């Protein structure tokens, strides 16, 4: 270790792709956002502590409440969990890093810049101020002209991109990079929880992306998805909550997995019923997608639907029952050590139980008719998200602090932290259950309501809880400098990360362990266990060579591009429209193109272990698996767009008849063009495989040319329709849905064509012809997918 070359601090942290460093970045950044969002909360709690208060104007109050929610859910809870996932998970499964380290770094920088954008929105007009749920039509440009919401939308889009990249990365890593013998069933619960969370993210976030995109388009281009009577409120309600409910499980499950691993360590016994716990998590994840209607109980969807959602929502509490009972049973005949981590873990279970029980109240549609929109709901979800998730994540912080820093924290200070947090938390939130008559998100209230005393009590609790966290930061900060060395395994735990030194060296494992049939770990070549792979010294420094500037540059480019799109001031008061800020847009686009080139030309190699546990995808290469996973997310994304089209169409009393709006011949031509381009794309792959340079060039040119033709016909159609005056974007839903859905598809075609150009350039340099045809294959997967989407769009828009 003494001959390591350590790069200068700034360069190291800005350009790192090492999972441990990216993990630390996530952890530290999420804690900063935690403090920011917490301060927002303390401010509005103070505002609410007495009736008729005017500490915060109603306008500011609404902004604080909204940004508090958005920051906590998107910029604190998940990133905090994924900080651990980044650092610890590869160690737990015996991998040296994630499958795509630069993509990982890029995820982080997208996350950071998106958070900057969200905070910036405060300074441009007003930050989003309609609750994190952003209901329509109050979010439309008519009721919220401020550009702060546009910037907020940009921030949300950026973080969804970050999350999608992470999902693909972790999925491929967990399926393809486990150490030999580390079967899925051998993994600790934390990696399982992350895996399940990733699946949920993959299926839920594209819906949110579609929703935010449509909201932005409504505001910037005057379309009508959410502001119309036919679309409007319920369209957003459905699309948002379809994502929103799985999302709240997404922010919970990693903490649950963490708790399920911490409790056994400090109980000195194996986890009770671990396979049932994992099975329950999977069941809960699946069911979480069919309960979202319980957020819409009073919207008038009809008694049949609401009864159905009552059943599914109450049913989802069953898996959680099993999980909690199993965790508690772990304590039977155990030797329970009450250190900081276990205190927080057990405390989290207790608070989660209260949160879960009160969730069942809200699942009952009859009770919800009284409790909807009241502080009962607020108390319920804070018991889960703070009591369950945050407390669980803090347990993780104490648990893994020695591993990450190599030093022990102060146990007594930590125990005081726990006591203050636990007591303060309950004083803060339990009174809110009793405020079940008080509406949410009201800036103040009159004294005659009688809500004053409980609010005051709640605020006191808030300050106790908030103040307690100072102890946490103090403890960790000081211990990191002066704490006593912890050694590799201070808890005498048994998961793989504890076999490494604290902190682990850059390359993690000197030799990747192998797990034998009887479950024992083997490090290094031993007779009879040839599975351990031995890596020579040449690898020990490779992570220090794993510095790359492109992740941060790319993220910055995206940041200023989206800022340019959303920062423009309104040009006219009515109808409100926004001027894009072209300098930023251009700079962002150019920088983005440069980074794409830099990224792809960089010599960055990921050492792939020869022997890994990779059921069930043994024969599928990493990148291909990643691309198919990404396409899965795209399916949901387009599915939601098409679904929105169906929704507004079926809710509209009239719709133009077939053939009246669009020339079927145009659509036919475009379909033929695209189908042919798929043919040329597959011909390109064939040419590459057989090494035919001319064939490859010809097919790539053909694909490109056909793409141009497609966009040309489409542009012609758009111009014709737009200039007819009758069918502009602002003229109702047929126009809106057509332009937006086909437009998004068109953007995908354009992206595909950029890829063709890139491939062509490389072909001219002689690549892809000597057995390295994979880029062509991957491009083909994407291109054929875009074709498939059009195969559905054609009949849906032109023929029905």
């Amino acid at each position, binding site marked *: 270790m003494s001959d390591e070359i350590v790069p200068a601090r700034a360069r190291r942290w800005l350009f790192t792709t090492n999972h441990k460093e990216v993990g630390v970045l996530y952890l530290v950044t999420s804690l900063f956002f935690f403090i920011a969002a917490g301060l927002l909360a303390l401010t509005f709690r103070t505002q609410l502590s007495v009736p008729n208060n005017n500490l915060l104007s109603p306008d500011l109050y609404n902004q604080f409440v909204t940004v508090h929610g958005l920051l906590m859910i998107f910029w604190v809870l998940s990133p905090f969990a994924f900080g651990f996932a980044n650092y610890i998970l590869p160690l737990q499964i015996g991998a040296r890093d994630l499958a795509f380290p630069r993509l990982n770094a890029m995820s982080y920088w997208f996350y950071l810049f998106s958070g900057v954008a969200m905070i910036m929105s405060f300074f441009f007009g007003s930050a989003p101020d309609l609750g994190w749920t952003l209901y329509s039509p109050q979010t439309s440009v008519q009721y919220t002209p401020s550009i702060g919401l546009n910037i907020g939308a940009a921030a949300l889009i950026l973080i969804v991109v970050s999350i999608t990249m992470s999902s693909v990365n972790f999925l491929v890593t967990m399926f393809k990079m486990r150490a030999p013998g580390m079967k899925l069933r051998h993994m600790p619960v934390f990696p399982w929880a992350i895996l399940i969370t990733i699946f949920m993210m993959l299926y839920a976030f594209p819906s949110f992306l579609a929703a935010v995109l449509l909201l932005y388009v409504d505001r910037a281009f005057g379309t009508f998805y959410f502001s119309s009577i036919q679309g409007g409120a319920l369209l957003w309600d459905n699309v948002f909550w379809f994502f929103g409910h799985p999302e709240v499980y997404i922010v919970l499950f990693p903490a649950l997995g963490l708790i399920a691993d911490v409790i056994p360590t400090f109980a000195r016994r194996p986890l009770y019923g671990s396979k049932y716990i994992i099975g329950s998590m999977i069941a809960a994840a699946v069911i979480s997608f069919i309960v979202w209607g319980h957020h819409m109980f009073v919207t*008038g969807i009809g008694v*049949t639907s609401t009864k159905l959602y009552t059943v599914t929502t109450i049913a989802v509490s069953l898996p959680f029952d099993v999980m909690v009972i199993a965790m508690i049973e772990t304590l039977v005949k155990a030797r329970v050590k009450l250190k900081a981590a276990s205190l927080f873990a057990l405390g989290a279970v207790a608070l989660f139980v209260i949160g879960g029980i009160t969730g069942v109240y809200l699942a009952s549609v009859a009770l919800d008719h009284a409790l909807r929109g009241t502080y009962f709901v607020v108390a319920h979800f804070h018991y889960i998200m703070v009591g369950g998730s945050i407390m669980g994540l803090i347990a993780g912080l104490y648990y893994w602090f020695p591993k990450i820093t190599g030093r022990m924290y102060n146990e007594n200070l930590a125990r005081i932290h726990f006591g203050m947090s636990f007591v303060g938390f309950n004083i803060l939130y339990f009174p809110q259950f009793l405020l079940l008559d008080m509406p949410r998100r009201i800036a103040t209230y009159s004294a005659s309501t009688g809500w004053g005393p409980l609010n005051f009590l709640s605020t006191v609790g808030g300050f106790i809880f908030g103040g307690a966290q100072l102890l946490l930061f103090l403890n960790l900060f000081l211990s990191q400098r002066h704490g006593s060395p912890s050694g590799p395994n201070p808890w005498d735990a048994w998961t793989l990360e504890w076999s490494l030194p604290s902190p682990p060296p850059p390359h993690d494992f000197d030799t990747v362990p192998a797990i034998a049939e009887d479950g024992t770990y083997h490090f290094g070549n031993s007779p009879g266990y040839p599975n351990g792979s031995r890596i020579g010294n040449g690898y020990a420094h490779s992570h220090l060579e794993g510095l790359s500037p492109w992740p941060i540059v790319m993220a910055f480019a995206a940041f200023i591009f989206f800022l340019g799109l959303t920062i423009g001031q309104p040009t006219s008061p009515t109808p409100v429209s926004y001027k894009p800020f072209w300098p930023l847009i251009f700079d962002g686009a150019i920088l983005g193109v440069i980074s794409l080139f830099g990224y792809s030309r960089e010599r960055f190699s990921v050492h792939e272990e020869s022997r890994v546990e990779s059921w*069930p995808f043994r024969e599928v290469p990493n990148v*291909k698996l990643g691309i198919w996973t990404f396409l899965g997310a795209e399916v949901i994304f387009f599915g939601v767009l098409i679904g929105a089209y169906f929704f507004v169409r079926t809710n509209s009393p009239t719709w133009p008849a077939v053939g009246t709006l669009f020339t079927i011949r145009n659509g036919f031509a475009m379909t033929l063009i695209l189908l042919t381009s798929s043919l040329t794309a597959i011909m390109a792959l064939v040419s590459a495989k057989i090494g035919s340079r001319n064939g490859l060039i010809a097919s790539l040119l053909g694909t490109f040319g056909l793409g141009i033709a497609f966009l040309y016909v489409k542009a012609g159609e758009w111009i014709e329709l737009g200039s007819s005056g009758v069918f502009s974007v602002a003229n109702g839903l047929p126009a809106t849905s057509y332009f937006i859905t086909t437009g998004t598809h068109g953007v995908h075609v354009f992206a595909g064509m950029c890829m063709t150009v890139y491939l062509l350039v490389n072909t001219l340099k002689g690549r892809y012809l000597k057995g390295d045809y994979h880029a062509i294959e991957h491009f083909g997967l994407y291109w*054929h997918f875009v074709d498939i989407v059009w195969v559905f769009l054609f*009949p849906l828009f032109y023929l029905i």
Partner: protein
Amino acid sequence: MYLLVFAILVGGTDIEVNLASVQSAIPYGEYVSILLGLAALKAALIAMFYQHLKYEPKSLSTWVLVGLVIASLLMSLSFIQLHVGH
């Protein structure tokens, strides 16, 4: 082989367009179903042959198929729910 698939795809599109011109003769519900069915068929062909799913390891095609099934179930569920209420 790819050309054969291409021919089927073009033919399918042709059928769709011709169907549109006689659309008034068929009940609307059936018309939409046939169109969507044809689209699904074309999509399946592209996926199986152009995206090579038919020849990929079972694990991958199962992965994609399961995902698609779940996605369509969710979409249909949303759609149904939107219509049961008034």
